[in-house]
């Protein structure tokens, strides 16, 4: 056991022991331990295997992105061992092994590494014939964890939240920023991924208790400030426009909208690069400090500290305070700057070697760290020959530099610049409402970070509208926190830059040699930064290597694009509770009760047909159609767009938006209406009814209702005509009572004169039906005598019931969308968007009669005038298959072939009981549009079906069904 006495800010509950299994063995940890810390405390240094070479790995960063410790936790795969708290009963296995961590069969890949250089798969596995084989193999040996397809569905909540100032990161600068903003009056949310707030302020101590006191005091003030909400265990996963930030906690995602956002996200410590820098026992200095102060775990017995900044010296002091020996501090800088930290170490007998680095690390029999070879390096980072010296140790702390956690700053559109003194990218120009402080802002000294946080907090509060008078200046840094070249060359390689993808220095050299000398190309070829940690510990070093290899500065090399989400988010959180609004007509319940099989039509659910036990779908549809032709039936057409235009210039408005003429309509009449867009393309159709001199009621297609209303509203504002447009789509229920017996049924429910003389075909009348105020139109979409009845929505079901009851003796029944499609096809009526497409003009579909080019203006007129003078390219025609067609039937969109070329396509097709054949509509070349022209339709399997053009309507061409029937 390496557990230390209680630390002042430790995350542990020492009264609760947690038992869990790892790789088949039972371990004990303490409540509050991360999986990784519990294992380390139990002496388990080997905690995972690497992705490509299957090398043994231990803790690297312990900073919530440690790819070395990724675990399968039952159905949960890729659990991050460095951040997930260990729970009683966990049964964990390391991902990416074949046969377990200790006996991983794939470990031999490590010895084959020379045959697996960067990008080898691009060159070796491109054979098309063999690719499926390779793909299968690679899918088996790669991938992290095993998906359990029987995992139960987890329903997670999503929520929105709001604040004046959102502070991302609860370290010293973030806490100071939150307090300043709150004291200015802002409501503040401060979030931090870690289980407890405080950040590096509570573990980068250098054995100096006074340093933790700064942060502890800030934290106490934050917790007691009523304007501040502190969200621990919650991280900001991305940044979206208008300061939307998704906050991820254990249970859900919260979409936070803030007036100001402060990035106090700190920096990622970067591993140094030397041979075997991945052996268990070698970790970032900050990882050792986290183990000591958060989990009270002694990281090692004897350490070597590889340093290039003051942080490394603090690590050494913290290790000493934790009872470890420090064999040496190897400082990569040419000389050791004078500092109290160095003095303190020397006073404790620690050897400090300036201009030194780790040449290579050595493993023991288990593949874990046993010692290092130190070496001198010259000013350019080259190893001084003959300077090597072996040091025994079981821990190496790497403290040579940082990379800003600036992912969200990039996503917000921040312009960054590379600061040569700091050796770090820092914000140069922040977007409005976005602020940065602390390490991500290039401020590293503890006191400066707190000051910088106060500055950012006040600025953010001011941006959120609060009065702020104070002005704060942050002193400039005097020491670089990052070494410009934390890389030590080695002829045998295995000096890893990217631990996710096992990328060594030579991989970058090879990539650049092959021409991938741009950061984006390098990323894609080498896959640097594309693993689970998304380059958090590798991108900066890769950038430095590329800069050196190409002779550019880091600024010139630039960074890759940072995309949401920058940190792992469970898919269950992203899925969350989804909202997909369904629109139901007021008659929906009646349809369901009648056995409707629903189909999706835009946002609506509509009855496709009504199922009858023992009957097939097609038989049900044909029976519904037969009922319309022979008796009476009722269909819900409430999904149609229903608009009203009212005012002295209502007719003028309709004249402008439709191709037809409406100012000459008589009150009580209806007229078919075609709408085009500016390019003359047919965009919608419907029926216009003149209710009064200054009132028109008109319908649109179901799918076009919202778009048409929106566009017409826009035009009404633009044209400033004296009329007003009202959308009644949801306010009115509508149903079509159709069939020879429709008048008989309706007569039972109304006092209105339904005679042909009083209520002729294509007339509109108002009155009451079943006591309900109604507008009724005699229209014939399905080709039968019928009434389209429009009533207030709240009476829809009542009228439906009344009509059904009144029609019982006439054999009434409901009919659905499919029967209606068949019936209208028999009449040759087209459906916009089914029989037309995004290029169809009215002349192509035989609607010349509906286009009044003599009107002064209507939308699309100019285009149609031009189109009119040009020869047609296609024409919509009716067609039928052979009389005794058998075999497969063409489907909508099947192609029409003539002389081996495409000559058109089928837009509608159905069996017509009335015609006794399959009939349809199709676009064909104008030369083929003569009735009787034979053509062929190609089926999906390539076979051909014979068809011939014929006249439409297929049924009742003289509209006899609309004439007086008694």
């Amino acid at each position, binding site marked *: 056991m390496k557990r230390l006495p209680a630390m002042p800010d430790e995350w542990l509950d020492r009264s609760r022991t947690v038992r869990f299994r790892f790789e088949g063995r039972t371990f004990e940890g303490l409540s509050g331990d991360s999986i990784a810390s519990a294992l380390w405390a139990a002496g388990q240094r080997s905690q995972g295997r690497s992705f490509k070479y299957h090398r043994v790995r231990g803790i690297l960063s312990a900073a919530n992105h440690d790819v070395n410790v990724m675990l399968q936790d039952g159905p949960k795969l890729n659990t991050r061992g460095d951040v997930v708290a260990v729970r009683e009963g966990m049964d964990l296995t390391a991902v990416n092994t074949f046969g377990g961590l200790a006996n991983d069969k794939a470990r031999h890949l490590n010895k084959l590494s020379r045959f697996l250089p960067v990008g080898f798969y691009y060159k070796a596995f491109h054979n098309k014939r063999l690719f499926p084989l390779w793909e299968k193999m690679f899918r088996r040996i790669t991938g992290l964890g095993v998906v359990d397809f029987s995992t139960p569905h987890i329903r997670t*909540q*999503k*929520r*929105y*939240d*709001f604040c004046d100032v959102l502070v991302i990161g609860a370290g010293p600068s973030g806490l100071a920023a939150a307090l300043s903003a709150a004291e200015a009056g802002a409501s503040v949310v401060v979030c931090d991924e870690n289980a407890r707030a405080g950040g590096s302020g509570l573990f980068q101590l250098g054995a100096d208790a006074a340093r933790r006191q700064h942060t502890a005091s800030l934290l106490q003030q934050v917790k007691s400030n009523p304007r501040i909400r502190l969200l621990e265990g919650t991280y900001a996963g991305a940044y979206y426009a208008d300061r939307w930030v998704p906050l991820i906690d254990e249970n859900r995602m919260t*979409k936070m*909208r803030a007036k100001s956002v402060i990035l106090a996200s700190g920096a990622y410590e970067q591993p140094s690069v030397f041979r075997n820098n991945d052996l268990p026992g070698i970790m970032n200095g900050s990882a050792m400090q986290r183990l000591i102060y958060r989990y009270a775990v002694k990281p090692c017995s004897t350490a070597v500290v590889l340093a290039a900044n003051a942080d490394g010296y603090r690590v050494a002091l913290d290790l000493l305070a934790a009872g470890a020996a420090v064999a040496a501090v190897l400082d990569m800088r040419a000389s050791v700057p004078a500092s109290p930290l160095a003095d303190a170490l020397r006073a404790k007998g620690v050897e400090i070697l300036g201009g030194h680095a780790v040449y290579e690390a050595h493993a023991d029999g288990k593949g874990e760290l046993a010692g290092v070879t130190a070496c001198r390096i010259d000013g350019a980072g080259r190893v001084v020959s003959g300077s090597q010296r072996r040091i025994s140790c079981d821990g190496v702390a790497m403290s040579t530099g940082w990379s800003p956690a600036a992912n969200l700053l990039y996503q917000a559109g921040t312009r960054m610049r590379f600061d040569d003194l700091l050796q770090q990218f820092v914000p140069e120009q922040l977007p409005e409402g976005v602020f940065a402080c602390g390490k991500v802002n290039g401020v590293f000294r503890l006191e400066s970070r707190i000051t910088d946080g106060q500055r950012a907090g006040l600025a953010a509060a001011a941006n959120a509208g609060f009065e702020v008078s104070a002005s704060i200046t942050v002193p400039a840094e005097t020491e670089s926190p990052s070494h410009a070249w934390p890389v030590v060359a080695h002829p045998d390689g295995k000096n890893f830059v990217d631990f996710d993808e096992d990328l060594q220095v030579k991989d970058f050299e090879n990539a650049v040699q092959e021409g991938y000398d741009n950061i984006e190309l390098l990323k894609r070829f080498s896959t640097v930064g594309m693993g689970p940690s998304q380059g958090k510990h590798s991108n900066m070093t890769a950038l430095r290597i590329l800069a050196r290899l190409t002779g550019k500065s880091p600024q010139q090399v630039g960074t890759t694009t940072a995309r949401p989400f920058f940190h792992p988010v469970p898919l269950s959180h992203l899925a969350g*509770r989804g*909202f*997909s*609004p*369904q*629109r*139901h*007509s*007021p008659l*929906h*319940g009646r349809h*369901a009760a009648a056995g409707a099989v629903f189909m999706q039509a835009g946002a*609506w659910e509509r009855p496709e047909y009504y199922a009858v036990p023992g009957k097939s779908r097609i038989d049900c549809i044909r029976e519904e159609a037969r009922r319309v032709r022979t008796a009476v039936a009722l269909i819900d057409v*409430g999904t149609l767009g229903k608009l*009203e235009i*009212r*005012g*002295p210039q209502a007719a003028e408005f309709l004249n402008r938006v439709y191709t037809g003429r409406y100012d000459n309509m008589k009150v009580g009449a209806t007229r078919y209406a075609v709408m085009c867009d500016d390019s003359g393309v047919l965009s919608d159709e419907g029926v216009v009814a003149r209710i009064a001199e200054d009132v028109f009621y008109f319908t649109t297609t179901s799918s076009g209702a919202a778009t048409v209303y929106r566009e017409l509203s826009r035009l009404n504002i633009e044209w400033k005509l*004296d009329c*007003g*447009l*009202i959308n*009644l*789509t*949801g*306010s*009115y229920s509508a149903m079509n009572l159709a069939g020879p017996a429709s008048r008989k049924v309706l*007569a*039972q*429910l*109304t*006092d209105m004169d339904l005679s042909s003389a009083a209520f002729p075909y294509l007339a509109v009348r108002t009155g*009451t039906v*079943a*006591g*309900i105020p109604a507008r009724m139109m005699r229209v014939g979409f399905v080709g039968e005598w019928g009434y389209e009845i429009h009533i*207030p*929505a*709240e*009476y*829809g*079901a*009542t*009228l439906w019931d*009344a009509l059904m009851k009144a029609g019982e003796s006439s054999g009434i029944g409901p009919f659905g969308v499919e029967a209606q499609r068949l019936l209208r096809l028999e009449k040759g009526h087209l459906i916009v968007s089914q029989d037309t497409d995004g290029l169809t003009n009215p002349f192509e579909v035989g609607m010349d009669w509906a286009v009044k080019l003599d009107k002064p203006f209507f939308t699309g007129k100019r285009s149609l005038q031009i189109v009119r003078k040009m020869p047609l390219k296609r024409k919509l025609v009716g067609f039928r298959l052979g009389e005794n067609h058998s075999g497969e039937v063409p489907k909508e969109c099947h192609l029409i072939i003539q002389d081996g070329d495409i000559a058109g396509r089928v837009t509608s097709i159905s069996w017509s009981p009335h015609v006794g054949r399959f009939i349809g509509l199709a676009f064909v070349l104008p030369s083929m549009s003569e009735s009787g022209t034979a053509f062929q339709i190609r089926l999906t399997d390539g076979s051909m079906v014979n068809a011939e053009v014929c006249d439409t309507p297929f049924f009742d061409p003289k509209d006899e069904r609309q004439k007086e029937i008694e």
Partner: protein
Amino acid sequence: MNAPFAPNRISPLFDEQAPHAAKWTQVETMQTVASFGSADAARLPLAGIGDLSFRRRAGVKGPGAAAWLNALGIVTPERMNSWLRMDDGTLVLRLGNTEYLVEDAPGGSHAAQMNAAAPAHGVYPVPRYDAALVVAGRNALELTRQTCAFDFTTLSPAAQGLAMTSMVGVGVTAVAMESGGETYYRLWCDGTYGGYLWATLVEVASDLGGGAVGLESLGRLAQQ
């Protein structure tokens, strides 16, 4: 024609409510759920969702709308996107600049009056058969947080502001009101989306300890 008809109004939420209703009542000629069961009373203090669609309402818009309403004795809010309650309990919502929604208190007659009156020049009647909901309880705000990107804390009952926003993907008009010192919300939406809105809000409310509440348990909330 046979005997005169006395048609019933049907709530746009009927289809969603019917399978769960324990007791029905007739209010303003609309069949409405009186109770969803014994849990109603316990749900209301947490996150209760009630159906007030039975209330009569009417709408009007156009440049002459305000004057026309005033001539009918209906007071109109001075600010855009705000509401007021008349002395007789009638709610008047000003939607944007020149559109108004008038909702009668139980037994009120303003809506009928509007429907019967001939619209003047520049007055365009807007029939309103909305799904009308009330959302109450101490978790009501959290319910809005899980269903809407709009910050309902900005709708204080005292300020009488009004929001037209999207909730669970459905366009709604929302206001905050107060009863007994507790804030609750009223929502109106197109009736054809009402069933989805109702079902979704009830589902989310159930996660918060609440759910559907019948008219009997709504008490004063149904009257205000």
